[in-house]
């Protein structure tokens, strides 16, 4: 078993990843609460945005323009999908709605493979200027990109929670989450609220995509699937409702995933982290529900 000192570097990398998973998880929860749709295309949208940003940087465009394009692309594509298919799918069950977003994910995944093939072994990558700066905490090296990832995760969690609680639009979203029909009869413009949720989710997908392209890899498979798996697990632990719990779960998933790295006996199974943690959390929560139900019946 590695010593505590050997574990320490992975706290930094794990927190940075956890921050991005949190940001993504919050995006998924907000959209789900407003529309009832689990956006499985979240990762693919971010991935394609990141690849577009990469091409722009290669073409000589300023880095910041490329980053913003990635974020805007995420927002536009997700909003476009929501507006185009959302109404048609609104009457269908959660399974159909979610699988349809998986369809979008696979389409984007295929387009990325076609447009950015790895012929010739070229390795696309994105780097931020913040990669080269940072500070040390004892033996730990921390770069500014990692700090930004965690800080964004926290800021977006807090900001989204405040937005849902205090803003008119946020209140409408919460109302829709509670009862969509009654909310509609109260005169809330449901389509507009849904559009805002799709747009917000897409913008977060773009942010997560560009940051993960730097912190993890500019790889379509990684960005399309890994982000969604970890974020979805966090959102599940938050019961697709609680933003603070989703945030905490995402941080724990990121931390545990990376802290397993030095334990060579199990490090090749670290990708199971989100599944295992989600399964444990769901078991514990369902046990709690059974116990409270039996207490009520007793």
């Amino acid at each position, binding site marked *: 078993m590695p010593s505590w000192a050997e574990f320490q*570097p992975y706290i930094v990398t*794990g927190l940075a990843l956890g921050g991005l998973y949190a940001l993504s998880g919050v995006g998924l929860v907000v959209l789900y609460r407003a529309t*009832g749709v689990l956006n499985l295309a979240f990762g693919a949208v971010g991935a394609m945005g990141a690849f577009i940003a990469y091409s722009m940087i290669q073409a000589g465009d300023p880095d910041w323009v490329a980053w913003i394009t990635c974020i805007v692309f995420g927002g536009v594509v997700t909003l476009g999908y929501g507006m185009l298919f959302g109404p048609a799918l609104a009457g269908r069950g*959660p399974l159909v709605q979610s699988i349809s977003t998986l369809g979008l994910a696979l389409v984007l995944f295929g387009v990325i493979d076609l447009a950015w093939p790895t012929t010739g072994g070229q390795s696309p990558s994105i780097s931020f200027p913040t990669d080269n700066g940072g500070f040390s905490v004892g033996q730990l090296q921390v770069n500014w990109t990692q700090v930004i990832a965690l800080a964004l995760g926290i800021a977006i969690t807090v900001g989204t929670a405040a937005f849902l609680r205090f803003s008119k639009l946020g209140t409408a979203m919460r109302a829709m989450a509670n009862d*969509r029909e009654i909310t509609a009869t109260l005169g809330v413009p449901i389509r507009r609220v849904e559009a805002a949720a799709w747009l917000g989710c897409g913008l977060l997908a773009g942010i997560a995509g560009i940051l993960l392209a730097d912190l993890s890899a500019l790889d379509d498979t990684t960005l399309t699937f890994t982000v969604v798996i970890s974020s979805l697990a966090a959102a599940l632990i938050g019961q697709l409702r609680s933003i603070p719990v989703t945030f905490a779960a995402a941080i724990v998933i990121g931390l545990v995933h990376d802290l397993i790295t030095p334990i060579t006996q199990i490090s090749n199974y670290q990708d199971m982290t989100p599944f295992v943690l989600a399964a444990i959390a769901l078991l514990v929560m369902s046990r709690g529900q059974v116990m409270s139900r039996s207490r009520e019946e007793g």
Partner: protein
Amino acid sequence: MNRPLHGRTRTAAAVVAALALGVLAGCSSSSSTTTAPAASSSAPASSTAAASPASGSSASTVSTSACGTKPGVAATGTPINIGAINTKQPGTDFSDIENMAGAYFACVNANGGINGHPIKFFPETEQTNPSQIAALAKQLVTTDHVVGMMGNSSIIECSVDAAYWKSVGIDVLGAGIDPECYSTPNTASVNMGPRYSSDGAVQYVLAQGANKIAFDQSNVPGTAYIAAGPSAVAKAKGVSIQDFTENVPITSANAIATKLVTAAGPSGAVVLNFTPPEALLILQAAQKLNLEDRVKYWACSTPCNTDFLATSLGPKWNGKLFVNAELTPLDGNTSATAQLFDAILKQYGSDVSGGVGSFSEMGFTIAEIGTHALESITGPYTIASVSAALEGVKDYNTGMLCQGYTYGDYSEHIPNNMDFTVTPDNGKFVQASSGGACTLISASDPQIAAYRAIAGTAPMAS
């Protein structure tokens, strides 16, 4: 229909989410499996730039007329049917190898052919589907009536077809990836493959004084076979080596880089055996975390030998990263062979999408050796005569390899077992100033020792 997101619906959504986790994980792992074997390929991918250590220089300009014995005279005789199978799928495309071989053969055909006979080339592509690969091999033999296979390069073709080639008596000349490309009687490669290239990388850092090795590669079938080579080389020098494997695509490069640096220690070396994208991820992560100087050396098997990787890494890695190189670099190379390569690529290589690079270089070398073998045949061109001609190739100077090329009639084939080492130099790879010249792969690797016991040691190319 408006509906509340309460109770049953949320439960249903949770179930969907849980199912989706499984579906997405399935997609993710399936994709990993698809791309992972390529990660252990030692076939590099892009162009290199270093002074040629093996090729002589030539002041004269070589044109495509040097392809054949009758410059400018098109071959019109009965065609000699030759086949090839390459992997070509999203993320893994080796088809530049057969495309360049095809360009070389086209050049030969336009300049007299093989004793007046044109080579009719049947390049096929596959998508790592064993039944498809087996069917392609049979189709080439029974329908297309090929008498030889020159230009194969596939993730799994050697393991799928080795027994078939033996049964029909065809000797294959290709660029190998899986172990069967080196350990079976009917296949020989122009490249060294992941195991022996990793041997070379480990051997280099040991010679530079590394006292501990952290060897990392993708977690795919066959990693134990590959790791056995570097492990034997390090242990023969009394240096401890720790093996790691990573699931690919890599999702947490920062953590991996940290792990490797910790394992190697300040006087040790990290040695990577990955495709360029994965290796670059780890190296860039080390750079972002300022870890590059926390070990004495970094090294890579051949796939890292791409200008793209050198450019992406930047000057911090000059003289810090050392990469095993299996074939002669072409940038700045003025040898007659390099000039012929350029001329063929320019005139006949419109299908070679990657242009100058290791894949096209391998295709050129395969076709060059194949043509040399075919030209030695005096009777009819049959499977038996072509295989016999290939087996007769001995110490042939390709101008592309460190040593002469020998096919031979052996139970296994590792004809390329001498290499050199390159290091980044401001966006290009150049020959390492210390110990970068052609060096024999250590016979501490039992597979190398076994091969040399039956085939001997080919001389260095002059």
